[in-house]
C-alpha cells in the first residue's frame, strides 16, 4: 500500500508527527499575535468588532501615557526582582536537596506543593494571609510586640496594610510570584547539579578550593546552560503574567503602584472596552521578550560551545 510505504519513510513521518505542534502554534499563538497587531493599529472596541485601521496612533498615545510608563517600570521591577530571587533561592534549595538527609522526601514534597496548586487559588490564599484586618502574619507580629504599639519596629498601627501601601503591595506580589516559580526552578537546578561530573568537584576540593570558589568557578559556569533556560522561562512567565497582580491588588494601591503591562492591557482592553489600546499595550511584550530570548540563548550557546 502506498500510504503504508509513505508512513515508513522518516521524511514523511517526522513532519506528520510535528504537524500537531505546528498547528497548535499557528492557531493559538500565531493567529492571536497577528490579531493583536491588527487590533493595535485599529479603533476596535469590545462592543464593536467592526473596525477601521487608524495607524500608529494607539502606540503614540500609550507611549505618552503616564500610567503606561509606570506599568512598564513596574513590569521590569516585578520581573527582574522575582527572577533574581527565584535563582538565588532555587540554587540554595537545590544545593540542600542534592544532599542526603533524614526527611528529604518530605522537604521535596513541601517545596513542590506550590507548583501543584492552581495559581489563582494560591493567590487567594495569600490574599487572606495578608488581609488588612485578619492577616495572621500581622497577628504574629503584634503578638511578639513588633507591631501595633508605640515604638514597635513595624509601626504603631494595628496592621501593616499590605495591599494599601505601595512598597508592601509590590513586595507581596513579588513574594507570591517567587513562591510560585521556586519549585520548578529548583527541580531544573537539581537536574543541572546532578549532571556535573563528581570528579571535577572532587578534584577541586583536593586542590583546596573552598565552597564559594567551587560555586563561582565550577558549578555556576557548568550550570549556565541550565540556569540560562531557567532565566528565560522565569522571565517570560513573569513578564507576561497578570494572575498574581490581578488577584492580589488589581494593579493598586492607587496610583497604579503594582500595575504591570499584562494587567494594564486587560484593564484598558477588556475592562475599559478599548480593545485596540489593550492590544497595543500587550504588543510591547514582543520586542522586549524577543530581545531577552536572543541574548540569553546566545549566551547559553556560547557557554555550551566553551
Amino acid at each position: 500500500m502506498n500510504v503504508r510505504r509513505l508512513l515508513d519513510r522518516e521524511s514523511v513521518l517526522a513532519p506528520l508527527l510535528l504537524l500537531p505542534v505546528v498547528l497548535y502554534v499557528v492557531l493559538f499563538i500565531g493567529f492571536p499575535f497577528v490579531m493583536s497587531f491588527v487590533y493595535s493599529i485599529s479603533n476596535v472596541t469590545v462592543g464593536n468588532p467592526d473596525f477601521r485601521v487608524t495607524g500608529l496612533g494607539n502606540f503614540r498615545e500609550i507611549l505618552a501615557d503616564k500610567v503606561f510608563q509606570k506599568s512598564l517600570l513596574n513590569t521590569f521591577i516585578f520581573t527582574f526582582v522575582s527572577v533574581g530571587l527565584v535563582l538565588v533561592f532555587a540554587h540554595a534549595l537545590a544545593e540542600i536537596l542534592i544532599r542526603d538527609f533524614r526527611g528529604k522526601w518530605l522537604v521535596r514534597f513541601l517545596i513542590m506543593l506550590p507548583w501543584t496548586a492552581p495559581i489563582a487559588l494560591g493567590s487567594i490564599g495569600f490574599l487572606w494571609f495578608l488581609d488588612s484586618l485578619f492577616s495572621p502574619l500581622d497577628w504574629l507580629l503584634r503578638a511578639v510586640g513588633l507591631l501595633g504599639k508605640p515604638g514597635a519596629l513595624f509601626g504603631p498601627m494595628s496592621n501593616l496594610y499590605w495591599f494599601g501601601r505601595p512598597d508592601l503591595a509590590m513586595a507581596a506580589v513579588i513574594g507570591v510570584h517567587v513562591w510560585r516559580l521556586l519549585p520548578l526552578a529548583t527541580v531544573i537546578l537539581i537536574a543541572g547539579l546532578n549532571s556535573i561530573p563528581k570528579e571535577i568537584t572532587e578534584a577541586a576540593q583536593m586542590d583546596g578550593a573552598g565552597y564559594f570558589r567551587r560555586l563561582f568557578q565550577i558549578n555556576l559556569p557548568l550550570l549556565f546552560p541550565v540556569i540560562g533556560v531557567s532565566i528565560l522561562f522565569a522571565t517570560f512567565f513573569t513578564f507576561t503574567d497578570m494572575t498574581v497582580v490581578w488577584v492580589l491588588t488589581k494593579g493598586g494601591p492607587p496610583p497604579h503602584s503594582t500595575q504591570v503591562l499584562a494587567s494594564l492591557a486587560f484593564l484598558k482592553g477588556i475592562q475599559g472596552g478599548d480593545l485596540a489600546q489593550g492590544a497595543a499595550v500587550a504588543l510591547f511584550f514582543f520586542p522586549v521578550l524577543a530581545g531577552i530570548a536572543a541574548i540569553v540563548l546566545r549566551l547559553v550557546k556560547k557557554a555550551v560551545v566553551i
Partner: protein
Amino acid sequence: MKKYLSRREFIRNAGIGAAGLALGPSLLNDAFAQKPGRRTLRILQWSHFVPRYDKWFDPYAKKWGEEHNVDVIVDHIGLADLRSTFASEVVAGKGHDIVEFIDPPSDFEPSVLDLADINREAEKKFGKQAPFAKRSSYNPHTKKYYGFCHGWTIDPGNYRKSLWEKIGKPEGPSTWEDLITYGSRIKSELGVQLGIGMSQELDTNMAERGLLWSFDTSIQDANERLILDNKRTVDAVKFMTELYRKSMTPEVFGWTAASNNQLLIAGRASYILNSISAYRSAQKDVPEIAKDVYFTPAMKGPKGSGLACEHVIYVSVIPKFATKNADLAKRFLLDLCSNYDRAMWESELYGSPAFFNTPVRSGDRGYPAVKGAKTLRDIHNAWFTADPFALPGEAKGKLLPLKDAEKWSTNVGHPGPANPAECEIFSTYVLPNMFARVARGQQSAEDSVKQAAAECGKIFEKWRSQGLIGKK
C-alpha cells in the same frame, strides 16, 4: 496483549483522537442546539450578592419557560467575568439571548438591539421609569435604547449609632463635613476609623462620584461636555485628602468590594458607604453589630447638594446575534418587571424597581401580603417603614431614611447619560487615582485634577470619534 504500538497504529489512533477533538465542539454545539418545535432562551447574569435571589430567580425563569413552551437556561457567572464573557460572545456571534449587566453597558451599543419598543411598552404598563435608569440604558446622541433597566440598588451611608452617640451625633452624619468633624473624633477618641474606599474598585468609584456631585462638580455636564478640571473638583480632592488623614488608615488604599462588609462586621468602622448588604450580612453573622447599624441618605456638600451613585443598576441587553429570540427575550424582561415585588423580596430589599408604579399582582406572592398595596411604590414604602427582615428586638424604622432614595440617587455620568466615556473612566479607575495621588502626597490637588481631566479628555475624544457621544 501487545506491548507496543506500531507507527501505523500510532498514526491511526492519533488520527481518531484528533478527529474526536475536532468534532467535539460541533457535537457539543448540537447538544445545545434548540430542540425541534421548542425554542430555548438563554440568560446570562451575575451570581447575585444575595444568594437567595438566584435561588428564586432560576426556578422562576424555568417556570416562565414552561408557561411559554420555552426552555429557559440561566447561567450565572462572577461579576468580574461578565464583560469579558459578553465581549467574546459578540466576537463569536453567538451566545446568550439576554445578558444582564450591573453597570451600564453603553460601549456595547453597536452590538445590541435597540430596545425602544419594550422601554416604551414598559412605561405604558408600569408608569414612569426612574430618570437615572433611563440615563443608564439610553443614548440621547444616537437615540438608541441599548438596554432595558429594570432595577437598581440604593447606596446609603451605614453608621454605628453607639459610636456616633458617644460624640454627640446620634443621628449620624448628614454632611460630608460631619465626617471630618465627628469621624475624626471617633477615630482619635474611640479608635474606630471611617471606611470609605480610595482604591481601584467599585465602591470607591461610587463614593468619590458622590463626593464630586455633592461639591457641585462632575466629570461631564448634561450635554456630555468634559468639565472635570474646575475649582470645585480641586476642593473635593482636598477635602478627601483631609478626610483620609484625619479619619482613615492606609487600609482604604487596598479596599476591595468586600472590605465594607468586613470592616463593619468586625466592628472596626464607624461609617461605610454601601448598600444594605453589609447590614444584612451582619444580621446573620454578628447580630449585635447589626442592631447598632443605622442608615443615612446621601450626604450634603458645602452648598447643600447631596447625591449618591446607584450601587448597582440592572441593565439587560439583547445582542444582535440573538435577533431570532428577541421576541421571547423582550416578553421575559417585561414579565420580570411585573414580578418585581418578588425580586425585591427575594433580594431582601437589596434590589429596588426602576418602575415604581408597577401594579402588584394578586394572589399568593410568596411573602406576607401588604395591606392596601396597589403598586410597587406602596410595597416599597411599607417594607422600608417596617423592615420585614429586621431581627427580633431590632429598632423599628431603620430603613426609613432610604424610602425616597430615588430622589437622592443618580447614575454614573450624572448629570449626563452613562455614555461609554463615563463607563471607561469608571472601569479604568481614573477618579480613584486622581484622589489617591493627592492623599498620598505625590501631587498637588490642582495637578492631579489636571492629569485626570487630560486622561478623561482622551477617552471622550475616542468615543466621540466612534459616534457614541454628542459633539462638543
